[in-house]
């Protein structure tokens, strides 16, 4: 037995099934899956620029006969939805399995959308493991099922499946000869003339899948009495099995298509049938649509956030365990930009110039938090650039604060680039800051086109960012060292004062977690006037002495970047 996370187990399952190709864009909680897969023998794995591209590479590789794994977080499925919906028409060559990793409770995401709806909407079957052993088995089997039913298969996990380690029995790899490819436009060219017959194929396939779901061994009934029955899936089923010891449980391992007959007969076997799920009402509505009366909980079950044994028991009227009250005076401990983070001064200066800052997805979203508080919006990957353009359109002709988009290098490659092309094409004005820290930092420092590193360390080359920007016809492109406060201030001032042009500033310096380079620490002299300016940088190494108000630098945390010293007007912050 080995203790594997759900993500590691999915990678193992794909490997055991003979998957040869893995494609993804990193995103919590899915990231480690492809990283684990990439380390296995006999596989090719790559980071793609975004999830849509990854799925398209995957469809191509599947058409070419290989078994393919593609992994993404739930919001990545939005990006990949376009090819996925039509891949459910074309079907597959080699088995094609797509991980959709959901984040109920939003530990690391901008929303808690439920990927089950995609399975249902795209007619792509979905398997829902509840622990790592199931994650391995379901993924392994999904490749064969994908080939048998000629359709991609979804594996759906949540943060509690992906990031929970549980015991797993690993097995050997089954070597699969890639299927030969022969041209077949009626299957692969989805123009109307060919798509119409494929739609009929899809409808017949749904029938076949529905029949298979009725006897699918991944759906399990645990009989524990006939009063209450609970339908559930994934991590939630673990809470239900533990928390409601007297309830019979229908644990769904396949959440689309549903085993309609089996669910109806389960419902008939109990006095009251409940559906317990988190983050949406997908299952509740789907079970109700079968004509089953879904009972109301004795007490309300939260509609948002993550469920737990305690929350489920409370909904069924069990008393809550006694515990100490929440300690109200405990200060929050939000994450913060690291000491020496190259993003810090950009946000400090954006806050000084009172810009409307459209933000994006990455570590730098932390620039929204106090004391920097320098972000107005954050919606989705790449939105900073397009939303800045929208702001400029709405504010045109009115006196307004400068509009500045802030986007990281990896996010820029993901989808910011297409937003920027659209902005250039439409003669958009404003300022775009690309925070190029040479890595995809938030998800654990993965490669991307602008640092030229690849997942399996194959030689590649860095995309020339300034070259790309100039080729787009952007005249005002400048490269600035983000550790130099004066240079950052000047660049932002010049760019934002030219109100009718588009300026792009590339702030380039490596993420401090890449090389963990340290210079001697700085310290604050006893002459500190307690002005508090350095505190407003929000560096975790700097704190305010509660009695004197003077600044203090934690020598262990300080990496000697010298950002703060540039803000000490009297020069009282000095290096050892």
């Amino acid at each position: 037995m080995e203790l594997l996370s759900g993500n590691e187990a999915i990678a193992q399952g794909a490997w055991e099934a003979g998957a040869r190709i893995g494609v993804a864009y990193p995103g919590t909680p899915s990231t480690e899956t492809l990283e684990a897969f990439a380390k296995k023998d006999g596989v090719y794995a790559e980071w793609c620029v975004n999830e849509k591209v990854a799925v398209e590479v995957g469809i191509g590789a599947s058409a070419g006969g290989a078994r393919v794994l593609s992994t993404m977080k739930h919001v990545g499925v939005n990006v990949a939805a376009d090819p996925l919906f039509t891949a459910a028409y074309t079907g597959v060559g080699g088995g094609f399995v797509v991980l959709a990793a959901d984040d109920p409770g939003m530990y690391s995401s901008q929303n808690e959308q439920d990927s089950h709806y995609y399975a249902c909407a795209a007619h792509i079957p979905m398997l829902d493991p509840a622990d790592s052993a199931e994650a391995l088995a379901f993924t392994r089997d999904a490749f064969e099922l994908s080939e048998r039913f000629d359709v991609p298969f979804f594996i759906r996990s949540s943060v509690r499946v992906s990031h929970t380690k549980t015991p797993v029995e690993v097995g050997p790899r089954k070597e699969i000869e890639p299927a030969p490819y022969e041209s077949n436009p009626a299957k692969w060219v989805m123009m109307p003339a060919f798509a119409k017959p494929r739609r009929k194929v899809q409808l017949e396939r749904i029938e076949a899948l529905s029949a298979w779901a009725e006897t699918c061994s991944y759906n399990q009934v645990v009989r524990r009495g006939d009063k209450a029955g609970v339908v559930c899936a994934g991590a939630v089923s673990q809470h239900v099995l533990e928390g409601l010891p007297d309830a019979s449980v229908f644990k769904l391992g396949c959440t689309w298509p549903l085993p309609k007959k089996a669910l109806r007969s389960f419902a008939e076997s109990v006095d009251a049938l409940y559906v317990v799920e988190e983050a949406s009402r997908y299952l509740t509505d789907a079970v109700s649509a079968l004509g089953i009366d879904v009972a109301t909980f004795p007490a309300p079950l939260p509609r948002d956030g993550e469920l737990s044994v305690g929350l489920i028991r409370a909904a069924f009227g069990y008393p809550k365990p006694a515990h100490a009250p929440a300690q109200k005076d405990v200060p929050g401990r939000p994450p913060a930009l690291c000491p020496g983070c190259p993003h810090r001064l950009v946000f400090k200066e954006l806050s000084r110039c009172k810009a409307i800052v459209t933000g994006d997805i990455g570590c730098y979203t932390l620039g929204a938090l106090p004391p920097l508080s320098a972000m107005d919006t954050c919606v989705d990957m790449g939105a900073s650039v397009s939303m800045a353009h929208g702001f400029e359109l709405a504010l045109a002709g009115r006196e307004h604060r400068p509009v500045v988009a802030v986007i990281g290098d990896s996010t820029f490659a993901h989808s910011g680039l297409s937003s920027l092309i659209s902005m250039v094409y439409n003669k958009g004005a404003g300022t775009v800051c690309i925070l190029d820290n040479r890595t995809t930092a938030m998800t654990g420092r993965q490669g991307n086109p602008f640092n030229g590193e690849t997942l399996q360390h194959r030689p590649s080359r860095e995309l020339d960012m300034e070259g790309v920007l100039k080729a787009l016809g952007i005249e005002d492109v400048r490269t600035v060292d983000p550790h130099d406060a004066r240079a950052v201030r000047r660049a932002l001032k010049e760019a934002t004062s030219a109100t009718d042009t588009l300026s792009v500033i590339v702030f380039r310096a490596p993420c401090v977690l890449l090389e963990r380079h340290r210079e001697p620490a700085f310290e604050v002299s006893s002459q500190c006037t307690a002005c508090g300016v350095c505190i407003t940088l929000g560096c975790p190494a700097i704190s305010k002495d509660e009695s004197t108000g003077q600044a203090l630098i934690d020598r262990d945390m300080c990496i000697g970047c010298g950002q703060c010293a540039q803000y000490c007007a009297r020069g009282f912050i000095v290096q050892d």
Partner: protein
Amino acid sequence: MSSNTKTVLLCGVGGQGTILAADLLARAAEESGLDVKVSEIHGMAQRGGAVTTVVRFGDKVQSMIADLGSADCVVSFETTEALRNLPYVKEGGSLFVNDESIKPLPVATGRASMPEHARERLRDAGAMLIPATELARKAGTTKAANVVLLGALSRALGFPTDVWNRVIAARVPEKYLDVNLEAFKLGASFSAE
């Protein structure tokens, strides 16, 4: 049912080594023939945020989440996080706390204050305050404070010492092994006093 399932919640600040401690604990449970689940929330861990990892073990473990009032043991690597997670300790449960405070950013920037009388309140709640960093230094490196805390916790769990020694040896690089074994021992003896 999972009536003999034990729940240990480890909490602290990103970078303090909660994940290694949780991993060692899980392996000790596994070595003892128990089912085990380790649930961690990462992603923001390196950015100094509050982190928690839950380890559950027993004959058959189901849920991977700890509820309020459900943890047999809470091990906190820092006093403020211990107060934050106090409601997770179940009635009659134990609380092991590294006697050390790390100011969160809102406090460091003067927008919030540290909780008053944290140590006294923790003691009143039955916590054992452990000078883990000092004991780790005595063992050879302050970096082994997490293993000191694990040693202190071990007294409440009942896995034999040789199981702990085996899992530490399997997980810790050889040149740090003696230091870590010593750190574990110091934590265990502190807890026994």
